[in-house]
């Protein structure tokens, strides 16, 4: 009989009038791995914060290692061995690997001075515990995301973690890195350390967790062995609605109507000899693993990282894209992957964000900004894209993730581009909003826009694209028609590049 590590019982947490968690109970045993899934606002982050002592539940009990808590402080939680690894990993980019790993311990022990030999020994031991090799003297800022994550894990293990909670740990990792991460965590599980993954990626849920808990609107919907769950079920249980993909109406591109033609495009350290055609009314997917060059290609087409050589022909005319300005003045729009950093002016109002790209067209006869025009334009797009907000005068930062993504789209759609490049348009967006965004993409294409969709989300590509190009090591290696391929084949091809690389090592 496995030993119980943590049990929460009848947890209720309210914020004002909103019930974030409504009578949630579950337990986790030593060495068990659990996946916590739910849409944005389902209560999963609230649950994590309750377990880590950041929030105090309004009702309910927490038992850790047999100790009963009504109120638990973050310090209590850490003392009981709960360690949360947040998405930013809480590391210092300007300090070495060794110091980053050892700092916590130094602070907790109340040390006044630093013994560097001890710091290095301590860090070495920490990395050995999770069986990874990272140079101790390297600056953390120079490492990859995957390495930083491993450092965060080894930090947690050294802090005597009994329960490791990881918030969306795979978002920025390549498949190989994800595999390596899972391996490390599985190894820790065998040593009796329990783990909770908070995840959005449905395909991964079964891979990681022995058990899956699905939260919806603050309630626990499912708590069972992950093996018995398929993606469709998880999707349904998360959203509470069936996301029907059978009746999707795809846009019908006209094969002879070439909107954009790319020939022999090159970028050193990026991609080589990339050629493709984009037709009017077409959604063209471009996929590949992280590092395959797809992101670089997207940035090159938008002028953010201009290509070194090659030609781009738009509507029969050759155009030069050397800067973002070149791209936009030729009618190319771009929705970036990191909407927070690159897509929005967060402190500015929603109205201003929507108007930002088209400010020139909102002039009155004196050349001044016509505020009424601005508001009516903005309101139209808020309505069309179903952005949930009481008024467009609120700052963009007040919106939830899914709504922010819609706002980025609105900003570019108001600009009415000929070609719209979307780079991972639904990364970190919940399932429901995702389906809405997919529908919108298809609709835009059927209205005549040419859309290039960069993504590694296979179902997303299958739900939206007419054609999918696969990139591997900087080259386009395959061209799939949606009608003649299926998710499994595409997935196999994508992973095949992984296997190939592994074989080479």
């Amino acid at each position, binding site marked *: 009989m496995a030993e119980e590590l943590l049990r929460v019982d009848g947890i209720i947490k309210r914020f004002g009038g909103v019930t974030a968690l409504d009578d949630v109970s579950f337990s986790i045993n030593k060495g068990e791995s659990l996946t916590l899934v739910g849409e944005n606002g389902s209560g999963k982050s609230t649950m994590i914060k309750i377990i880590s002592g950041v929030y105090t539940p309004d009702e309910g009990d927490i038992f850790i290692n047999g100790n009963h808590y009504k109120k638990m402080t973050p310090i209590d939680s850490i003392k009981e061995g709960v360690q949360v690894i947040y998405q930013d990993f809480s590391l210092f980019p300007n300090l070495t690997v060794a110091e980053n790993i050892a700092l916590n311990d130094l602070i907790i022990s109340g040390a006044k001075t*630093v013994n560097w030999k001890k710091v290095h020994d301590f860090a070495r031991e920490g990395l050995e515990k999770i069986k990874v090799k990272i140079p101790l003297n390297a600056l953390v800022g120079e490492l990859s995301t995957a390495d930083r994550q491993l450092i965060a894990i080894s930090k947690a293990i050294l802090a005597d973690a009994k329960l490791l909670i990881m918030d969306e740990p795979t978002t920025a990792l390549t498949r190989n890195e994800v595999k390596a991460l899972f391996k490390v965590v599985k190894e820790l599980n065998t040593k009796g350390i329990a783990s909770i993954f908070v995840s959005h990626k449905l395909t991964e849920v079964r891979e990681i967790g022995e058990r899956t808990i699905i939260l919806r609107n603050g309630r626990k919907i499912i708590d069972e062995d992950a093996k018995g769950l398929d993606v469709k079920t998880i999707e349904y249980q998360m959203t509470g609605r069936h996301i029907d993909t059978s009746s999707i109406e795809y846009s019908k591109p006209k094969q002879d109507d070439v909107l954009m033609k790319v020939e022999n495009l090159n970028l050193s*350290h*990026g991609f080589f000899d990339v050629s493709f055609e984009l037709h009017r009314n077409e959604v063209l997917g471009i996929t590949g693993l992280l*590092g395959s*060059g797809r992101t670089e290609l997207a940035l090159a087409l938008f002028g953010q990282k201009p290509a070194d050589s090659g030609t781009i022909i738009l509507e029969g005319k050759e155009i030069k894209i050397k800067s973002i300005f070149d791209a936009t003045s030729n009618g190319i729009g771009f929705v970036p992957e990191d909407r927070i950093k690159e897509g929005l002016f967060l402190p500015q109002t929603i109205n201003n964000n929507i108007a930002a790209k088209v400010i020139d067209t909102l002039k009155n006869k004196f050349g001044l900004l016509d505020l009424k025009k601005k508001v009516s334009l903005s309101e139209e797009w808020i309505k069309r894209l179903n952005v949930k907000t009481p008024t467009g005068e609120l700052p963009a930062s007040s919106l939830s993730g899914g709504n922010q993504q819609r706002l980025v789209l609105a900003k570019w759609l108001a600009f009415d581009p000929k070609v719209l490049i979307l780079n991972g348009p639904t990364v970190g967006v919940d399932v429901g909003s995702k389906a809405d965004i997919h529908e919108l993409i298809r609709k835009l294409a059927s209205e005549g826009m040419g859309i290039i969709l960069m993504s590694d989300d296979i179902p997303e590509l299958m739900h939206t694209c007419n054609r999918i190009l696969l990139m591997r090591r900087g080259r386009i290696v395959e061209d799939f028609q949606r009608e003649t391929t299926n998710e499994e084949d595409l997935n196999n091809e994508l992973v095949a590049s992984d296997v190939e690389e592994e074989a080479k090592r």
Partner: protein
Amino acid sequence: MLKRVLRSNEFVVLLIIIALSLVVGSINPTFFTIASLFDLIRASNVYIILAFALLPVVILGGVDISFVAISAVASYGTHMLLITRGYEGGLFLYFVIGCLIGALAGMLNGFIITKFDLQIFDVSLATQTMWYGFTLFFIGATSNFDMPDGVVGYYSSFITQVSNETTGVTGLHVSIIYVIVIGIFLWWFLKYTMIGRGIYAIGGDKDVAERTGFNIKKITMVVFIIMGVLSGFAGIVQSALSRNFNPTLFIGQNLDVLASVILGGAAIKGGRGTVIGTVLGVILTQIIRRALVLTHIPSEWQKFVVGIILIIFTVIPALNEKRRKNQGRTTDLVEAMEEA
């Protein structure tokens, strides 16, 4: 390890210093004399101590411009306090009182910044003006040339000296001892104490530092106390060397000191900076100044040249960063290309 040293900022500055010295020396051989070296050291000492005062603030992620005003109020205030009471002793009492005034003035900066969670620059802009104004209005508006008996000979307190027919007696001034002692202390403090590491941590990422458990208020206060003490100390050394105490000491020189600190490899956005780099940064600035005199280039050029070097020094790390970003996550690609 060797690669790291060779690629470090300090090493690049050292190379520039050597190259520049060779050029200047070949045009004007007097640059290579012991007298010239002693003179260079003497001129650098005060600015190195001032740069030491500023270094922890820069590592913390801030820019302070008030430290020069703190030097003025501490040195001029101490002098007027002692000289009007007929003090005839040595500099020791000057240092005690001056550093105390400096510490208090630094604490005021630290207090306002931590209490109201303000930007270091904004607060220092105010306190700089305030301290110069305070000194001029309440203490005195003119330079004072009266020296206590114990201070009169300070400007020529040499550890060892050389004499030359044309330049007369030049010596290695005792102030180099302060630089060495303070430098070693600061190096130890930054590298081996938890407060020192906290300064780097806060400069690297303030939010993470707070979450990790560093006491940001305490560390900020310590940084400003150090800044105040060293500024006061530098003010007194400078005044005693030039044999006059001046209410507008160092006025307008704060940005030159900042430039030296940045030349020495400290990052203006915080989190990076070393004692040895700072020393080299000041020496480089001083050599440029000298080089232009020795090679008969008009002195107006000096600031221009320092400016150009600063531009180069800010552009190089940015370029490196950009290149790293461009290569980004495509390490597999690079390998693939190398295989091909």
